[in-house]
């Protein structure tokens, strides 16, 4: 059964070959990931197809030097592999169910329209959307993540929706009715920022 969920964002800047600009974010991610200490851990991230994924972290499509990989990982899974090299990788789409594991590293971002300089320019709804995500992560509230509106998320260039929803389904399935543990999840948000106009969250959920 799932014992710990850790949420991190997936900017290409977290890949080793492109790093340097956001070392503080990386260190907060690493600190949160230390909660996934051992056990059977799955990295969960958006992917063109659902299921276990193998491949190589490849930053050359983003302009890093080197030879392109034969089987480059999708971005979120490449970031997950970079942050937690030993874990297996699982690609998710809109309706994915996750296999039973002890820990999940959930890789995905919020909106990309938080400011005028944001990749998608300013959308006034972006801050509110990200606030709902932050509150859901802080409250350990999987139902709030499942209630996020996919069409609005797409408009706001939200990168993490599929991964968050897959994780929320897994977390909800663990909750035991009638008082047996876990009765729910206790959330802690370690970082909620949008330094480049993209919503980044680092959070941890443990059973209540």
């Amino acid at each position: 059964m799932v014992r710990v969920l850790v949420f991190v964002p997936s900017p290409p800047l977290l890949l080793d070959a492109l790093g340097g600009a956001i070392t503080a974010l990386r260190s907060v991610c690493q600190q949160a990931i230390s909660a996934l200490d051992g056990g059977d851990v799955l990295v969960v991230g958006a992917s063109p197809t659902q299921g276990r994924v193998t491949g190589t972290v490849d930053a050359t499509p983003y302009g890093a030097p080197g030879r392109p990989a034969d089987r480059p990982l999708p971005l979120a899974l490449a970031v997950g592999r970079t942050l937690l090299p030993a874990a297996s990788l699982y690609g998710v789409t809109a309706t994915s169910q996750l296999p039973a594991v002890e820990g999940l590293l959930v890789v995905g971002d919020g909106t990309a329209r938080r400011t005028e300089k944001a990749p998608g320019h300013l959308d006034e709804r972006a801050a509110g959307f990200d606030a709902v995500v932050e509150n859901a992560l802080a409250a350990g509230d999987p139902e709030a993540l499942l209630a996020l509106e996919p069409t609005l998320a797409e408009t706001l260039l939200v990168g993490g929706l599929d991964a968050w929803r897959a994780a929320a389904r897994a977390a909800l399935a663990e909750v035991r009715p009638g008082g047996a543990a876990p009765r729910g999840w206790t959330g802690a948000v370690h970082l909620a920022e949008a330094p480049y106009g993209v919503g980044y969250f680092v959070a941890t959920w443990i059973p209540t």
Partner: protein
Amino acid sequence: MLQFRGKLLPETSLVMAIVNRTPDSFFDRGATFGLQAALDRVDDVVAAGAHIVDIGGVKAAPGAEVSAAEEADRVVEVVERVRAAHPQVVISVDTYRASVAELVLAAGADLVNDAWEAPEPETFAVAASFEAGVVCTHAGHLPPRTRPHRVSYPDVVADVVTTVTGLAERAVAAGVPRESVLVDPGHDFGKNTRHSLQLTARTSDLVATGWPVLMALSRKDFVGEVLDLLPDERLEGTLAATAVCAWQGARVFRAHDVGATLRVLRMVDAIKGLTEPVVNVRGLA
């Protein structure tokens, strides 16, 4: 040989001067938004030696919506006045709209500089109907006035070559004179800084297609990020990139800083043996 509606350009490196009739472009920030200020800017850059003036009415970055009618209001009169004042200068208009292209070509423009990968493909037929030229630009397959977000390419240079040569052939098929087509790799457009640097380093790959290459480098973010400098501090970085591209055979350079760019290009042309020194007496007297 490059020519636009009968105006033949020299076989040297060339400068396309930026003239913004916009209140909000990233570098000049409205300095030439007023009609008279725009006309004065044209007089200045022509006097400085610009071969082409590129008049724009909509900034490239996201921002306030500018309708086609508003865009035409900004640029058509400038084109008419510049045509009258400078009969021989090549007038380019920076637009991705076919309707605006038609109006400015009717007003005397020679070249349509579409920086967004021909989102309105009828622009080619419009240009052809005036025997005018077009710029075919790679914009990362993004819609006009959007920013790149985590764009990736298996090989950005190959993507650019395929895209711009495809557009150029389509332009010629639509009737645009072959000697009036330029290709532009579109630095920063649908690209991160590393992509733009790769395109700069491999300019020769694009030159090798045979299409004359326009480079729009001036004070762009890829220069700013390399040096961590603001737009008004990016002249030297721009000129370094200009020299590197000119050395590899790019022909036209879209520039804010016309005099400085011309001096760099004259120097590169002399090194390449394309032009003679203006003065050559040292050690020879």
